[in-house]
């Protein structure tokens, strides 16, 4: 019984601390790698990062305001394939996709009218069935020009 309890505690601790460690890595990745992509824009201070596996998607909803200049940066850790992202408006018009721009990590834009936009982020699958799909951090960050 004691052995079972010890094993249970060990597994629980592994999952709790293991997950926290991965999340801490994501924070470091966002702060030390992805944030640099925003220069010379000012980072808004929000944190959006998650561990994604090849083939998985994330979505982000945000309101962007008229007459402001924004930069979106979407970055993935080195072990992942190049991250795909697109920006879609409420009427489902695709305003931008980095697939058409050599998987560029950033996009600079401004709006004539404030609106909600959706950022769709996808980790493409390499399609190699002999290998386990890779997982890694993906961060979505926003910068703006201070007026």
């Amino acid at each position, binding site marked *: 019984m004691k052995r079972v309890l010890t094993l249970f505690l060990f597994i629980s601790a592994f999952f709790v601390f293991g997950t926290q460690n991965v999340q801490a890595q994501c924070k470091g990745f966002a702060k030390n790698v992805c944030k640099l992509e925003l220069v010379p824009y*000012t980072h808004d201070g929000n*944190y959006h990062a998650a561990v994604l596996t090849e083939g998985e998607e994330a979505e982000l909803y945000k309101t962007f305001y008229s007459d402001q200049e924004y930069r979106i940066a979407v970055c993935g850790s080195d072990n992942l394939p190049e991250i795909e992202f697109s920006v879609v408006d409420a009427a489902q018009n695709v305003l931008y996709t980095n697939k058409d721009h050599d998987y560029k990590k950033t996009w600079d834009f401004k709006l004539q009218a404030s609106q909600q936009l959706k950022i769709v982020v996808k980790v493409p699958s390499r399609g190699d069935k002999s290998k386990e799909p890779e997982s890694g951090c993906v961060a979505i960050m926003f910068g703006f020009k201070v007026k």
Partner: protein
Amino acid sequence: MVKRSPIQFIFLALITVFMFSCKSGEKKQEAQEETVDVDVSQLDEEMFKNINEAKEVFYSLPSPLETAMLVKSAGAGYDEDLLNPVDNATKYSTNKSMALNLGIYTCDLSFASLYDQTQASIDYMNAAKKMADGLGILDAISQESIDRLEENINNRDVIMDIISETFMNSSSYLEENDRTAIAAIVLVGGWIEGLYLATQLVPDTANLETNKLVQRIVDQKLSLNIILRLLNNNKDNPDVEAVMKDIEALKAIYDKIPMTASEKVTTSTDENDVTTIESSSTYKITPEVFKELKEKVKEIRTNYIS
């Protein structure tokens, strides 16, 4: 039976064709008008339609720094009397009040910094630190950050960087430690503070249809569903439930402000590789609704800082 000449037939045929073409022309124009301007609530539904397909969904509110910047860029002046006094920091002891006021003080700090108010910036950074420490957010706002702020007090770019970094430290710490409810409350605190500053700074004589600050206030209607969805993800937390009720009360007032947006958008990219999203939107706000909104925001904010 009346006999008609061929000329009469041609004449009748021409009139018929003309009438039909006019009617279909009208229809075409109506159809175009219907698709050009759409109520934003309708667009909202469209936006969140296929939401369950992604593994991870983020609802991103304007951060306190962005909120303060939006108020400033709309031409508002600086009024220190509107900010939450730093002496109030000692009053907050619950997680909810500390989280709300971490957002509020971060917004006030950003606001003061954007107007180059050096002493106020230092004071508000210290007030925000008290809130973060109280919430157990280890080293989010370190003494080193405060020292760096003091050393670079005349360099706005560095100050903005310090504010964004400390805010990211707080939110990432809360996310990492499964305290997403607290992280959401911090964001709502900053958002309400920005709305409070904006509504208070609109001059009494302002034209509600053209004033830029009013436009920014109305624009917040677009964020309401995002806030409610963010809070809804944490609705089991009683503190979140209370905050949600406040946002729902605000939404009831915003529902009285009709807003339309063009469904069609075009994009163009300039020589600096900056894309402009070309679209338009309209809104209508009466003085009565604006007054109601201003009073409600003040009531909620007073409750948060008390």
